């Protein structure tokens, strides 16, 4: 990197069905919390990148970057919307990091937001499906759970992964969410609950799927040299990686992992000078339970095919070898698609600062976030280190 | 005539509903209906099937037997009373799906249940005059019947396709002659914008079906100087099992002459598909040299009669596509609620 970059403040709304809050109220709330956490004034913000997947479909509003700058009282700073389906938040952070690293800007807000409950759930499902290939996947009757079910079935076939192992991902993430005040669900579930939940696209059942969620999250990105002079423990962005893959699943060689995750992780690990074994805590993209199993394999926490086993052994629980989704993940905390990538950073920053309360991973110094767009057409990985 | 059948193919949806299942809903005695109509079950289209998909599958099967280049097809006619569009041809969908576009003529036909055989005559005329090399006529329907109407027991889905060309070595059968009998007889109709047909009850019998089928049959026998004994097989339009048997008896055909082409007990009345599928069932089994009498019937009303003689080429072509028996045996039974859901009769 041209210059070291740090996260100096984080903030998010509660995630859930926020019927009483509008899009603009949500982003203002998250932004104000991030600035308060960073202890800086709005006047100091130089630029903003907003991760937002589909405001056009969810609230019939495009041009949300301007809307947010306006309602945050931040005009005339440059404000840019970044879209990469469910990876929009992660991409917004990466743009903010690049902007600060380059020296063009000093204080940059990376925001993520999605208001999903202003449409009926069928419309929300349809909006999410626009992240898949409309001409050749959605056309054939595919939905997002459908496409992940195709990966799950193949993973089960090739590696013997079981529906119970997938269910254990949901059980763990719900358990973690119970310790996160911002999470959508504060409800423990059992493997049996998952297995007996209504079928969505088999082998995936309702409790294998992340919910429809409203939420916003913001982080403040700054040069590390300035961060070190501030009160808070600075959290350095040690590595950033992003990769693309075919938008449609059927065009890929492998259906049991995401090449974009592997490539983005390789890039981020190399930049940070660390490997999978160095990671103390990770927030991964568990839009479906199978997605977490594939992610922990693709990120190198275990060998390909052993993600189910690693989960079953409890190694991804808090206290395990590599705690994954301590926030509750997309499954337990909720998945406001554009906000997810930023909310993951909120969790890792809190963990590395030692501020994660009951879900704190003891002595966590290096953390990772992994955010996926679509079925893996986009993946973005960031690695963070305590900067003190 | 110097016209032959170059290929034939059928398609019948896989779903079936038994007479018992429908009778149960309306409190009727299934054994009386089965006996009265001589029908056991009928085919039901899947929710994603319609006349266009059935016509395409039948045409593709006919092409497998014909072994001709689709680009050599000069005319496509699709006869149906359940075209998916009121305006916009089914025939163009078929033309594109069998890669026959763009140098051909195409049109949809409607003459109740006989539009498919009307298409055969049109193709035969165009071939005879040298305007086209091959023509394909398809009769296909997803027949509508109002719930509770006696038609509900028989109104089925299926289609047959016949490829017509010169009567040369490629021809699996020769069309020796054709004769039609037509009058204005309103025995069965469906008005514009109405979902279900209406019918004249017993009026659909004597003055309608019987008068036209018998007249067309007598006409062609007279024209070609043939008698029922000259035919190995006869196929009559089959709105139910009883009518074709009665008409055969009246004409002097025996049971053994019509058994091969009597498909209605197993699949119901496929309307425009009915006579076409009956002919296909005979071609599936007939020997070279055997002669077949085919008489369609369309309400409104009219009948087209054909005398067809099977040729050597049948042996080489017959096994190239699924046979009517294959469709008979490949079935999934559904219950009445599933049936009305598949027919789109449940309003959400």
């Amino acid at each position, binding site marked *: 990197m041209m210059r070291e970059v740090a996260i100096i403040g984080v903030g998010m709304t509660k995630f859930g069905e926020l019927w009483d809050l509008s899009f603009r109220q949500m982003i203002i709330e998250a932004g104000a919390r991030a600035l308060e956490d960073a202890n800086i004034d709005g006047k100091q913000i130089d630029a903003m990148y907003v991760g937002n997947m589909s405001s056009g479909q969810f609230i019939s509003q495009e041009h949300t970057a301007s809307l947010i700058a306006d309602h945050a009282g931040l005009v005339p700073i440059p404000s840019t919307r970044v879209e990469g389906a469910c990876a929009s938040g992660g991409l917004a952070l990466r743009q903010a990091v690049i902007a600060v690293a380059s020296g063009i800007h000093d204080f940059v807000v990376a925001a993520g937001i999605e208001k999903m409950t202003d449409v009926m759930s*069928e419309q929300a*499902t*349809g909006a999410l*499906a626009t992240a898949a*290939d409309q*001409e*050749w*996947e*959605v*056309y*054939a*009757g*595919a*939905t997002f*759970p*459908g*496409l992940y*079910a*195709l*990966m*799950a*079935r*193949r993973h089960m*076939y090739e590696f013997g992964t079981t529906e119970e192992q997938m269910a254990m991902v949901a059980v763990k993430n719900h358990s973690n969410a119970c310790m996160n005040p911002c999470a959508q669900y504060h409800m423990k579930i059992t493997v049996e609950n998952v297995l007996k939940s*209504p*079928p*969505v*696209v*088999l*082998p*995936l059942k309702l409790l294998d799927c992340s919910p429809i969620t409203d939420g916003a999250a913001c982080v403040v990105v700054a040069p590390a040299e300035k961060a070190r002079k501030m009160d808070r423990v600075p959290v350095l962005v040690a590595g950033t990686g992003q990769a693309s893959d075919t938008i*449609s*699943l*059927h*065009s890929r060689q492998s*259906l049991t992992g995401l090449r974009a995750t592997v490539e983005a992780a390789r890039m981020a690990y190399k930049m940070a000078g660390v490997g999978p074994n160095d990671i103390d805590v990770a927030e991964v993209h568990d839009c479906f339970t199978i997605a977490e199993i594939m992610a922990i394999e693709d990120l190198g926490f275990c060998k390909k095919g052993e993600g189910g086993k690693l989960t079953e052994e409890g190694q991804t629980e808090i206290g395990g070898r590599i705690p994954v989704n301590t926030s509750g993940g997309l499954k337990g905390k909720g998945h406001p698609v554009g906000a997810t990538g930023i909310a993951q950073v909120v969790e890792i920053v809190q963990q590395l600062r030692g501020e994660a309360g009951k879900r704190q991973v003891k002595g966590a110094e290096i953390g990772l976030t992994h955010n996926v767009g679509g079925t893996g057409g986009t993946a973005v990985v960031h690695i963070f280190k305590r900067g003190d | 005539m110097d016209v032959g059948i170059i290929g034939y193919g059928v398609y019948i949806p*896989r779903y079936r509903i038994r007479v018992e299942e429908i009778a149960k809903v309306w409190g009727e005695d299934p054994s009386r209906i089965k006996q009265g109509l001589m029908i056991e079950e009928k085919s039901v289209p*899947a*929710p*994603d*099937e*319609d006349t*266009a*998909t059935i016509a*395409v*599958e039948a045409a*593709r099967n006919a092409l497998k037997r014909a072994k001709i280049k689709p680009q050599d097809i000069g005319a496509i006619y699709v006869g149906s009373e359940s075209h*998916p*569009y009121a305006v916009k041809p089914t025939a163009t*969908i078929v033309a*594109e*799906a069998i*890669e026959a576009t763009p140098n051909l003529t195409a049109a949809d036909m409607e003459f109740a249940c006989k539009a498919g055989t009307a298409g055969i005559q049109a193709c035969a005329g165009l071939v005879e005059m040298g305007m086209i090399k091959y023509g394909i006529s398809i009769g296909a329907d997803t027949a509508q019947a109002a719930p509770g109407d006696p038609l509900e027991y028989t109104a089925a889905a299926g289609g047959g396709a016949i490829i017509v060309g010169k009567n040369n070595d490629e021809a699996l059968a020769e069309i020796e002659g054709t004769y039609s009998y037509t009058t204005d007889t309103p025995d069965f109709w469906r008005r514009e914008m109405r979902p279900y047909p209406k019918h004249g009850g017993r009026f659909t019998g004597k003055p309608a079906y019987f008068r036209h089928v018998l007249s067309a049959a007598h006409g062609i026998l007279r024209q070609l100087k043939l008698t029922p004994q000259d035919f190995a097989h006869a196929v009559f339009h089959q709105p139910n099992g009883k009518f074709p048997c009665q008409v055969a008896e009246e004409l002097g055909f025996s049971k053994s002459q019509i058994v091969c082409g009597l498909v209605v007990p197993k699949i119901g009345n496929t309307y425009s598909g009915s006579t076409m599928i009956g002919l296909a069932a005979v071609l599936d089994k007939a020997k070279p040299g055997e002669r077949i009498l085919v008489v369609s019937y369309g309400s409104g009303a009219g009948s087209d009669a054909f005398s067809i003689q099977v040729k050597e080429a049948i042996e080489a072509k017959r096994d190239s596509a699924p046979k009517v028996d294959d469709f008979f045996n490949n079935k*999934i039974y559904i219950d009445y609620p599933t049936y009305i*859901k*598949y027919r*789109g009769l449940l309003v*959400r």
Partner: protein
Amino acid sequence: MAAPRFWREIPNRYNLIGTKCGNCNKVLFPPRYICPHCRRMGKLEPYKLSRRGKIVTYGVVHVAPEGFEDQVPYVLAIVELEDGPRLTTQVVDCDPNEVKIGDEVELVFRRIGSDNEDGVIYYGFKFRKV
């Protein structure tokens, strides 16, 4: 949607017309407009694909998207065609419990969807077990 979006895909969806690169000989479906392997050196030409293939993976849809509600439960699958390319499709006319990875399937012509009650009807490929 306006009709052209579907109309222009008719050959591909009715008859599995994909593309083949004359440079690397790879067969591609859905059709592509530049070879992803050879890029500008590629020579793409229309290529008619085989209508048979095998199920690579599948799922059973119980919660369907708009327009597919009447068909649940239905089988959504990735099929690998004999020529190599894979596609996403429905496997129809079968009991979802009887579908397995590796099952042989063949193309059928079906109604895919339509623009409301009074709009254009879209047709295309689905598959059924052989």
